[in-house]
């Protein structure tokens, strides 16, 4: 048996797929070939070494592992709540939205009073002057549907 064949058989043996008769042949080769014997030791030794390592970690975390279902159930419930929340929230979300819009309107609308909401290009007015020693008073009456506007001009300032 050459070394290439032996390595294939070592892998097959590790996987439990090597017939007993071939296993005996392999053992004969390993007895006379240190390199293949080391390969065999490496392949058959890896599993127990890794299982020993994970075994230690499992022992360290045994209490937490015992409570795994409690953790999982909590996670499932939490996710279930998160999935429910959008439906619940959708029902009430318009209330803070409307309140926010109303608040913004109250805050910002007065700051724009320099702009009249009413921009007539022309209109008929009746102006009535009232004499005064200190001021010029103008009364404007545009009609029945609109309010009367009064300007009081005092020392050339309105």
């Amino acid at each position, binding site marked *: 048996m050459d070394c*290439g064949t032996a390595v294939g058989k070592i*892998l097959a043996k590790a*996987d439990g797929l090597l017939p007993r008769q071939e296993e005996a042949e392999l053992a004969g080769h390993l007895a006379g070939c*240190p*390199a293949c*014997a*080391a*390969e065999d*030791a*490496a*392949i058959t*030794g*890896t*599993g*127990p*070494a*890794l*299982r*020993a*390592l*994970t*075994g*230690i*970690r*499992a*022992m*360290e*975390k045994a209490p*937490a*592992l015992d409570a*795994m*279902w409690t*953790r*999982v*159930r909590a*996670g*499932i419930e939490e*996710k279930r709540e998160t999935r429910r929340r959008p439906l619940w929230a959708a029902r009430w979300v318009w209330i803070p939205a409307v309140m926010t819009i109303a608040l913004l309107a109250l805050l910002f609308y007065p700051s724009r009073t320099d702009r009249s909401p009413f921009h007539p290009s022309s209109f008929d007015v009746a102006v009535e002057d009232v004499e005064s020693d200190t001021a010029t008073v103008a009364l404007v009456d545009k009609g029945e549907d609109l309010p009367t506007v009064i300007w009081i001009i005092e020392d050339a300032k309105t």
Partner: protein
Amino acid sequence: MNEREVGGVPDDALIRTTLAGDDGAFAELVERYKGRAFAVAVGIVGDGDDALDVVQDSFIKAYYKLKEFRFGSNFYTWFYRLLVNQAIDRWRKSARSAEVPFDESWLSEDASPPDSFAYPRTPEDLVRNRELGDALQRAVDALPEYHRAVIVLREVDGMAYDEIARVLGCSVGTVMSRLHYARGKLRESLKSHREE
């Protein structure tokens, strides 16, 4: 491999009962697979607390994806796919992860023959020789993530090559070459530890 014989009720029946609204049946699946799932997760992520989180998250994900499970296939193969992906994601996000260049020489026939080495065989061996345990953990950490997943599924969980291929979504040939690479790397790392 499948633990339905041990637990009594087949996995498929537990899944159907869970889908019908009985979370107790899913609790049974968790109890059935949590130990093996932890061993695989800790083999990939390295840290026990991270592994617990991975197992927990994988079961939660499985619970909500249970509708997608195809009856007739193995639950653990389906679940392990979620678990391994979750573990690899966790590993990538962790501070322990590092870029490990793929060493093609391990796949070639030119790889140097190994020296004989006394591997630890039980947790007690590693407890007695903590340095060796640390060296083994470092060697596992240094493996590229999918190579680590392959060797853990094969050596720790005892999965067959075709099952590993289904879990990782690759060919059996890829599984075998990754296993060869991983074994070689572990052997080399532990040999270096012995020589220190």
